[in-house]
């Protein structure tokens, strides 16, 4: 068989046709399938190739709420925020060509941060594919490296089975985005609606339970360790394993450090929580990891922002790595015990094994380790200098914690503001922190917060963004106002691209190159132009009252907080350095 034809075979397993199945056009099949999957909200933007779908959408208003974004990037970040806050699969609907390409940043972001999404893109009619037709782009080709899987629908009758598979793939194992590309004529073609009762995915076997022997052996190592650390991340949140984590950590009386993506999976205020580790993690967390003799890593991927220089990372530690994604194990750091499993199941197994353990654990067994950890905590806690005339970003984050009782859902972009929130907000629960971690996408925070707010209209949701990132997706103010969102947007305004500025200051000898926003709009007036409320705080003395007013004003409120420009995020692991070589100030 010639190489080129491997693609042309074996149509997807057709749904069995029963005489009773009602015929409907592809567009309707798609929406009916979404309803079957429990979808209540679709974030989207119409266009030529999805006209039939939008035509049907208008008839299904009672079952499916459509949120009309102002840019497809906004739509997909909303779906990500919706998904991250709820744990459900987020759904995006856009047209072909530019509609699809505008979602790429969000797709790549969801892929990096394991966010379950189903993205439906229109495509030109089947006969026009490959002719460089109007608004044609090879969406499947473009998204192949940044989706968990993608589908080109070739016949309307395939739609229900593809939707079913797509939701299953997106939400199981290591979650991720799945894209369905549908040519326009397929959405007009009629076929019976038959929802498949079973899936045929012989090559996809997401692991759930860990090998019991491995768990028991790993537990023995953990119990034998004198300086153990529990390093946990987004995988805990995806598998809903926070309760198991708390039980396990308390039973072992072991220090816990979450990654950026894991914030909230373990209560920040818990006495065993050392704070975040990594490039801008706490000194204590990084020292504890560096000096540990056993690292129990669960639902993490040893990202470079966590490990710093690899050859010095946790050099003396035996590493037990548990993750649902086999390819994450021993990818960056060789694990002595590599266990493929869902975090929740694996921790439950560990708890069961611990309960069956003959000798009860002595509460004093790690006393000297905890004493050592306390000295690091005392030596370099998170600190900043207060100022009488300038608002400090850290002060803003701390204040926000107090005023929301640490219970708000907070979405951020990437950069200094993101690190300060991670350091100072003190998340209590999983799914409270929505952030662009792996991809580091500016423009994510505000639409993600909007998506979360539309999922939880009664919760306090805050978009905490920089002045740079906000300007990347600020047009979604119209969406927020249109849908009556009770959303607060706090702009940490330092009039510059702060993290880049910080690097230029420290590593490029203050050669500031294109990091100052020499012209920014008046964000208060911008808010007002969109029909939102705009407020500003310039001086520390007015910070409290402005925040108080802003947080209690209903509807969309933009709070422009002018902060100290020269403030840097510390502590910091310099690029190429090991995490024990932190620059403290």
């Amino acid at each position, binding site marked *: 068989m010639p190489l080129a034809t491997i693609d042309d075979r074996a149509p997807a397993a057709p749904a069995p046709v029963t005489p009773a199945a009602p015929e409907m056009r592809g567009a309707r099949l798609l929406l009916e399938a979404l309803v079957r999957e429990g979808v209540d909200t679709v974030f989207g933007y119409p266009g030529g190739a999805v006209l039939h779908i939008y035509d049907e959408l208008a008839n299904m208003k009672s079952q499916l709420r459509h949120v009309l974004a102002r840019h497809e990037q906004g739509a997909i970040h909303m779906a990500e925020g919706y998904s991250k806050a709820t744990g459900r699969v987020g759904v995006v609907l856009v047209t072909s060509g530019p509609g699809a390409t505008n979602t790429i940043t969000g797709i790549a972001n969801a892929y990096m941060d394991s966010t379950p999404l189903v993205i439906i893109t229109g495509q030109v009619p089947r006969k026009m594919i490959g002719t460089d037709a109007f608004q044609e782009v090879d969406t499947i080709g473009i998204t192949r490296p940044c989706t968990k899987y993608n589908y080109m629908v070739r016949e309307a009758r395939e739609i229900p089975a593809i939707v079913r598979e797509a939701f299953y793939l997106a939400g199981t194992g290591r979650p991720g985005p799945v894209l369905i590309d549908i040519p326009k004529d397929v959405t007009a073609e009629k076929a019976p609606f038959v929802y498949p009762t079973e899936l045929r995915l012989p*090559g996809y076997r997401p692991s759930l339970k860990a090998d019991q022997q491995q768990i028991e052996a790993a537990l023995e190592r953990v119990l034998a360790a004198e300086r153990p650390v529990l390093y946990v991340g987004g995988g805990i949140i995806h598998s809903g394993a926070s309760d198991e984590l708390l039980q396990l950590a308390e039973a072992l009386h072991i220090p816990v450090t979450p990654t950026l993506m894991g914030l909230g999976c373990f209560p920040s205020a818990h006495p065993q929580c050392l704070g975040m580790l990594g490039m801008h993690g706490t000194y204590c967390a990084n020292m504890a990891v560096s000096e540990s003799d056993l690292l129990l890593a669960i639902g993490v991927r040893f990202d470079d922002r966590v490990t710093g220089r690899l050859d010095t990372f946790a050099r003396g530690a035996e590493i037990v790595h548990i993750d649902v994604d086999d390819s994450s194990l021993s990818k960056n750091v060789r694990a002595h015990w590599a266990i493929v499993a869902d975090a929740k199941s694996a921790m439950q197994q560990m708890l069961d094994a611990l309960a069956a353990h003959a000798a009860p654990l002595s509460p004093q067994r790690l006393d000297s380790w905890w004493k050592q950890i306390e000295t690091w905590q005392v030596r370099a806690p998170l600190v900043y200098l207060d100022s009488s005339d300038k608002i400090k970003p850290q002060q803003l984050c701390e204040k926000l914690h107090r005023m929301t009782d640490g219970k708000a859902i907070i979405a951020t972009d990437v950069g200094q503001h993101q690190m300060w929130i991670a350091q100072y907000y003190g998340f209590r629960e999983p799914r409270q922190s929505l952030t662009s971690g792996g991809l580091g996408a500016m423009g994510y925070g505000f639409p993600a917060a909007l998506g979360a707010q539309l999922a939880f209209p009664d919760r306090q949701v805050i978009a905490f963004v920089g002045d740079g990132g906000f300007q990347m997706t600020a047009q979604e103010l119209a969406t927020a106002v249109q849908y009556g969102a009770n959303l607060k947007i706090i702009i940490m305004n330092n009039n510059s691209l702060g993290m880049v500025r910080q690097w230029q200051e420290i590593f490029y000898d203050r050669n500031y190159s294109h990091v100052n926003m020499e012209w920014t709009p008046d964000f208060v007036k911008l808010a007002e132009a969109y029909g939102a409320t705009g407020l500003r705080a310039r001086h520390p003395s007015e910070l409290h009252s402005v925040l108080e007013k802003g947080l209690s004003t209903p509807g969309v409120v933009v709070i422009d907080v002018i902060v100290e420009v020269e403030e840097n995020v510390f502590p910091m692991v310099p690029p190429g350095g090991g995490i024990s070589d932190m620059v403290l100030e």
Partner: protein
Amino acid sequence: MRHTLSIVVENHYGELARIVGLFSARGYNIESLTVAETLDPSVSCVTLVTSGDDRTIEQIVKQVNKLVRVLHVEDLTGSSHFEREMVLINVRTESHTALHTVLSLVANDHCNVAEVMEDGLIIEATGEWKEINALVQKLVPFGIRHIVRTGTVAVCKHPGEQITSLVGTIASSGQDLQHRGTE
């Protein structure tokens, strides 16, 4: 080090592109690639030759295994298997001496003359990639006008149950093999 991987994949739209894309995206090398369907037309087998240290190969195997439609991946290097590659070489033989030398060389190396032309021969050879390399080296001095290699195909000597059930079984829906060849 050179590794030969055997990848069994569902024969679906775009799956080969997914495998190849994975290699280029992650900076892995593809030294050769062959693909064809198995006894079950809904399943294809890819033989892919790559190189890297043990850690890289482990990561490659895991990444390929992670692809949704990939049914089985095996690193054949280090286990007992049989490899072959085929080559077609169009070599210049303008003088009688050249023709004689090439013909004797061909006879010694157990390869075939597939076509005789006025000024050259098309040589067809099958062997392990090292043998093919050696043959090519011998023919270079005569002037190679065109050469095409198929890349390595490899088969397990003692395959596990899983491979046999995937590639060695005629699917109930499978058409007659002779027919499929002409598609």
